[in-house]
């Protein structure tokens, strides 16, 4: 039997619409609805719809672990960089506020009078707060660790030192002071420690540069890992992506679905790594403060000043965890959009 398309007598139900009573639903389809009780499962009522990208299709645990390790390493690097930069600041400030005038013993010249002259010149200079001469015994004491106690220092022509306390390093004209000392005081040499400051600064800058390089490498490795994980997740969700395209999803919608998943994974990993790093800092500080008298602690203290992780290191680590999570999400988004755009 052939039916004409415009035959309105055919018994079919009208398409459902918002104002159509449900009792009008009819026989276009098997009668199962008529006999089945209405679903008691309040399925959609208040329940969040299931995720479009299923959980099991992303290597979530492995990715969280890798991001946690990377975040931990990044946090350690950031802590080391902040510690070195704060130690460098301390060195520079300490060294910058001191200078020494060395007066060599010259035969036939009274060194004491030269010392007095040098002190007067130093005190008259702008920016120098105090000039104190070290006594003969104090100068000898400085050499004791290297020469031992057995030596009679009185017989040696040990140079005498004048310690200068600088109130304002910027206003001191070291060149003028040095020229004046050399012309007026026999055997005087001004040492403003600038040579040491420069060396320390360059050493610290190198250490900070290495730290940032490591940080960049860690972040690059994290990005590459996320790219691989995203591609693998996309490969595992080919059918879902195809169906999403068929139902009218644009690349941006699909990217947002993956991005959301990876942001959460990234945040979990980076928070775990960051928290473990902070715990490590805390334990390290605790151990170092308990072993303050130990040789190792002393050596570290000699090099880095007081071993202390400022609040800065904790804040930097906290910010870093969010940066890594956001970086993960952005990487995923760009990877998905780039991969999908190649399909068209």
């Amino acid at each position, binding site marked *: *039997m*052939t*039916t*004409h*398309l*415009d035959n*309105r007598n*055919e018994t*079919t*139900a*009208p*398409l*459902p*619409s*918002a104002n*159509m009573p*449900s009792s009008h*639903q009819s*026989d*276009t*389809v*098997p*009668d*199962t*609805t008529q006999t*089945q*009780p*209405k*679903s008691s*499962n309040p*399925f*959609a*009522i208040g*329940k*969040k*719809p*299931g*995720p*479009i990208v*299923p959980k099991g299709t992303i290597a979530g645990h492995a990715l969280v672990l890798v991001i946690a390790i990377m975040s931990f390493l990044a946090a350690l690097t950031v802590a080391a960089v902040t510690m070195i930069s704060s130690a460098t600041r301390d060195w520079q400030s300490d060294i910058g506020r001191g200078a020494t005038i060395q007066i060599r013993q010259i035969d036939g010249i009274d060194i004491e009078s030269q010392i007095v002259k040098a002190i007067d010149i130093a005190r008259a200079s702008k920016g120098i707060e105090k000039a104190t001469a070290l006594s003969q015994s104090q100068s000898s004491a400085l050499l004791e660790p290297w020469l031992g106690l057995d030596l009679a220092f009185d017989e040696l022509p040990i140079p005498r030192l004048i310690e200068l306390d600088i109130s304002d390093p910027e206003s001191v004209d070291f060149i003028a002071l040095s020229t004046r000392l050399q012309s007026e005081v026999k055997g005087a040499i001004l040492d403003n420690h600038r040579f040491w400051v420069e060396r320390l600064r360059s050493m610290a800058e190198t250490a900070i540069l290495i730290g940032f390089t490591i940080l960049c490498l860690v972040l690059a490795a994290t990005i590459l890992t996320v790219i691989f994980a995203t591609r693998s997740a996309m490969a595992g969700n080919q*059918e*879902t992506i*195809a*169906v*999403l*395209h*068929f*139902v*009218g*999803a*644009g*690349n*941006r*919608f699909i990217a947002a679905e993956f991005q959301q998943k990876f942001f959460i994974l990234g945040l979990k990993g980076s928070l775990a790594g960051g928290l473990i790093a902070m715990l490590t800092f805390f334990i390290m500080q605790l151990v170092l403060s308990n072993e303050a008298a130990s040789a190792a602690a002393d050596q570290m203290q000699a090099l880095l000043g007081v071993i202390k992780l400022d609040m800065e290191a904790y804040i930097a680590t906290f910010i870093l965890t969010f940066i890594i999570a956001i970086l993960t999400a952005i990487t995923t988004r760009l990877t998905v959009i780039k991969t*999908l*755009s190649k399909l*068209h």
Partner: protein
Amino acid sequence: MIRFENVGLRYGVGREVLRDVSFEIAPNSFQFLSGPSGAGKTSLLQLMFLSLKPNRGLIRVFGKDTARLDSEELAELRRNIGFVFQEFRLLNHLTTFENVALPLRVQGLSEQDYRTDVKELLNWVGLGHRMHVYPPVMSGGEKQRAAIARALISRPKLLLADEPTGNVDPILARRLLRLFIELHRSGTSIVIATHDTGLMDQIQARRIVLNDGALFIYD
């Protein structure tokens, strides 16, 4: 609505599976697309659905030249076209309700906005009692109806169906056909690809026949 002008399609370097295909799908029209297996029916549907690009010729969908559209514009156009796949293509990790609601979710609507519509449509296709089950436990007929519901939920202007009755018994096939007729009466253009002559004989409708890559129309 859809206009093909001298469209040619080939896969790789092989011979053209569609040659110089020209036709038009008018608004509120009903047609069968038929031809033997391998004649290019699915390829033609995919071209209409913008999931394939032709090697030559012009395709205009809703007045727009598809060659000039970017991916977001293509997605926007696809929202006006419903597609029923022969193999259903439901997502196994989503319930029937969620599968059917997917086109609306993609449009950014919240579950609260579409809940009533989806439930009504599921009742209409007879899946009201199966809305919270997952596809793996559904029968072929149920999956087919869910796939149809998903294609209809966003009220498309055009519905393309690829062998929609291929996996169901003749009784259900007839019921599904009546469902498509009802949809056509409500203003949707319908293209049903099938090689089931028994199904086509049930109603008088335009037939687009593909044979060896060439197209013939019987109005």
